[in-house]
């Protein structure tokens, strides 16, 4: 049995040697390294995975979840290119996916997926740039390949250990095997978190050397923690612990990320523009759609947080409308009162916003205010006579001559 223990320790030695990364003690995130030219995959593993990614990308290109709007795509790509440099970014392709989650990902071959939920949550160009530059950092450092190789060597050791434990058929060997497995999985996720920190650092380095405000990187995470807290509080759950790192966590805690990103941001950059106006303008057409997707997630606390956070720059008809939808969808009698008020604000801000009258009418009808509600619904049909639900709405609010 002791022989087996020795063997397991021996097998772990190369793993544990790599586990510890140097602590983050630089005053600011380092400047990005000089551009070394377009990278091509090397070796069987990397060439193989790039080919897999190429196939996935081929399918993604024709996927219905993709947002094809050229204006939006050009804008997001341009934010990435201006942050990491046009020479570097030419190795990547940005795809915007309509899915209301906060996420972005990067594959080994340079396919960057940006989810619409991210675009809804970042409030300016600098925040978006920080996430894009982080993902680009994964590509630049080729983390995907390292993760695969790490997983393969770790799982190889685990497979040998399980078979060896099977051969020896004794309790101690089995116990050692299970201990070893935990160490292997633990180190896999620890490596993953270290990769994320490295990508954060690299991304911040790009932001420091760009013309955008680097402090926005930390604000992304602060904002996200605010949202998670709001979401939990409405559900009556405990405030999430953002400092805790779970065994299977692939990313460092949000609090830790916010702390080091804020500490390592270039202090001189604090006065820089964060491009909030450009960002709002570029996303203007899509904001109502992204908001609608978010409202339909049925996460009241989070949606309310996002709407209020967007409203810090002033309430617009679209924000009032989204808030009305959020309250009407939850639909308690007390919510209907609020919803009606929000729809009225939306209609006040934009008297031609047909859907605001629809929401107002339906809220009022449901709250028992029939004639008032019918009035709003008639206004909706006036503004949008060809609406897909026109027939149904007409049944609820018949023409005045008919009803009399």
């Amino acid at each position, binding site marked *: 049995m002791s022989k087996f223990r020795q063997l397991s320790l021996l097998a772990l030695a190369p793993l544990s040697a790599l586990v510890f990364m140097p602590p983050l003690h630089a005053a600011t995130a380092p400047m990005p390294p000089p551009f070394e030219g377009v990278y091509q995959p090397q070796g069987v593993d990397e060439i193989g995975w790039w080919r897999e990614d190429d196939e996935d990308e081929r399918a993604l290109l024709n996927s*219905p979840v993709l947002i094809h709007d050229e204006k939006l795509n050009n804008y997001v790509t341009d934010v990435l290119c201006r942050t990491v440099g046009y020479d570097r970014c030419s190795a990547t392709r940005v795809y915007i996916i309509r899915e209301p989650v906060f996420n972005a990902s990067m594959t080994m071959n340079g396919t960057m997926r940006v989810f619409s939920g991210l675009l809804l949550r970042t409030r300016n160009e600098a925040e978006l740039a920080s996430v894009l530059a982080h993902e680009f950092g994964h590509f630049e450092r080729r983390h995907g390949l390292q993760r695969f190789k790490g997983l393969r060597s770790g799982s190889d050791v*685990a497979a040998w250990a399980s078979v060896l434990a099977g051969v020896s058929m004794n309790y101690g060997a089995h116990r050692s095997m299970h201990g070893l497995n935990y160490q292997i999985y633990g180190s896999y996720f620890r490596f993953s978190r270290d990769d994320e920190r490295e990508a954060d650092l690299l991304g911040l380095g790009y932001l420091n050397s760009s013309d955008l405000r680097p402090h926005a990187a930390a604000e992304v995470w602060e904002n996200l923690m605010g949202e998670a807290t709001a979401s939990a509080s409405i559900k009556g759950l405990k405030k999430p612990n953002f400092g805790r790192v779970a065994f299977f966590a692939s990313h460092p805690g949000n609090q830790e990320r916010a702390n080091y990103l804020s500490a390592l941001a270039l202090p001189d950059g604090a006065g820089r523009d964060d491009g909030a106006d450009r960002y709002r303008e570029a996303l203007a057409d899509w904001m109502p759609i992204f908001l609608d997707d978010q409202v339909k997630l049925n996460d009241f606390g989070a949606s309310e947080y996002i709407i209020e956070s967007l409203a810090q720059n002033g309430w617009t008809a679209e924000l009032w409308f989204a808030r009305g939808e959020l309250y009407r969808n939850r639909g308690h009698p007390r919510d209907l009162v609020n919803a009606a008020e929000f729809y009225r604000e939306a209609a006040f801000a934009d008297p031609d916003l047909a859907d605001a009258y629809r929401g107002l009418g339906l809220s009022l009808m449901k709250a028992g205010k029939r004639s008032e509600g019918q009035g709003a619904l008639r206004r909706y049909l006036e503004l949008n006579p060809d609406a897909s639900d026109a027939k149904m709405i007409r049944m609820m609010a018949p023409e005045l001559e008919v009803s009399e």
Partner: protein
Amino acid sequence: MMRFFVLIFAVIGLIGAGPQSASAQEKTAVQKGFELAPNSGKRILVFRPAIRVGAQSTAGLFEPNADWTEEATKNIQASLAEFQERIGNEVINAPEAYGAEAQNLQEHMDLFAAVSRSAIKYQFFAGQRLPTKKKDNREDIFDWSLGSGVSSLPGADGADYGLFIFNKDAYGSTGRKLLQGLAFLARVPVKSGEHQGFAGLVDLRSGDLLWLNADFAMGGDVRKPEGAQKRVGQLLEEFPGSDLPDGRGE
């Protein structure tokens, strides 16, 4: 990154539950009443085959190999044309599609994968077979369709049937084979290598799935032309109208 989560949980599953037992599974079905006489001269539109070839690490992870995949794709496509020519059909490779057509094609590729995987899972093999499909099996009913939308696919107007092919090979690495050897001594079943695929024939007018063959333990080294020939023979086993003496005696 998602892929690595899938991988790691696959590995956890492997270690936790012990290596999976090797179960050779293959089955073919033909839509009731569908017949294709040999030498009927039908035109078959072959959609871009999904072929992945790689190695299997010691613990069973898939290690993609671009070179092998390229060779296999070339070999399988050549053998496929030869096979269809032998039974008297004409093979047409689907034309390159652009824009809305490409989106439509991708949707249908995914739809075929979803429908055929459902047929395989819920009708073909014991395990998650649905009671209604068990009844269908007894009555020799095979009733699946992609819908008449297939007639709008690029190249569909010049062909009678569409052929979809999925193939995945993972050749056991040296480490995997050694592990298999030792595991054998420990009486733990460890399978080295994975060779599975399925192929389906679709009516390009109605969208009905006319024939489907799934085989999760195939032979033939697709990296070599003669191996690919054997593989295509197994992928297209009991292909309608292929009752020619082809040496396999099925």
